């Protein structure tokens, strides 16, 4: 898992991951890129991350992938990420395509629901929590 301040250098990251696994005999490599869209007059999105819980969440997915003979990778931005740049990339390597296609779907969806990352719109230099696009994590409401 890789965390960066500001937008991701997607080509460097994907190229490096590809090089790292060049001799691993994986038949499928499926990358996913999340790009900030220009909408609602935002200048950027901005992110807070709670790394200790994110690392445990990611470790759990690495174990699930390993059980399928696959590898999951991810990188995410911290702080401001301007429109038309990337805040999130992930990828799956697996011996055959079907495992990788299913795993990237499940991994990215669970990432959206349970990775401890908070998103803010940046408008006129002000950070506004994206409450209406955010999802309560599994187990929410315990203390209510």
């Amino acid at each position: 898992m890789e965390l960066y301040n500001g937008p991701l250098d997607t080509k460097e990251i994907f190229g490096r991951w590809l090089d790292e696994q060049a001799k691993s005999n994986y038949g499928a490599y499926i990358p996913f890129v999340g790009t900030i869209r220009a909408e609602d007059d935002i200048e950027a999105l901005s992110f807070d991350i709670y790394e200790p819980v994110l690392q445990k969440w990611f470790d759990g997915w690495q174990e699930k992938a390993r059980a399928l003979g696959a590898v999951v990778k991810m990188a995410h931005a911290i702080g401001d990420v301007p429109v038309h740049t990337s805040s999130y990339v992930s990828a799956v390597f697996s011996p055959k395509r079907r495992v990788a296609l299913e795993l990237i779907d499940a991994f990215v969806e669970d990432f959206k629901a349970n990775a401890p990352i908070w998103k803010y719109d940046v408008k006129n230099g002000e950070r506004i929590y994206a409450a209406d696009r955010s999802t309560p994590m599994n187990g929410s409401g315990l203390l209510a």
Partner: protein
Amino acid sequence: MIKVEFLGPIGKAPMEMEAKTLADVSAKLKEDKTLTEWLDKCAVALNDTMVNDLTTALKDGDRVSILPPVCGG
């Protein structure tokens, strides 16, 4: 004493309190009106491991994290 920290957009300073279980933490946090809008949609971690049982016992020095709704990517 245990410590309660509020992550992401909650924007509240950490609190220290006496609590034997997460139920005690719940009772104390419910007294704080600034948290009313948050508690029903927040998840909880104890020493960086997600928990979902109010009877979870706490010991001196434990750290409870309150995690509001997320949106990565």
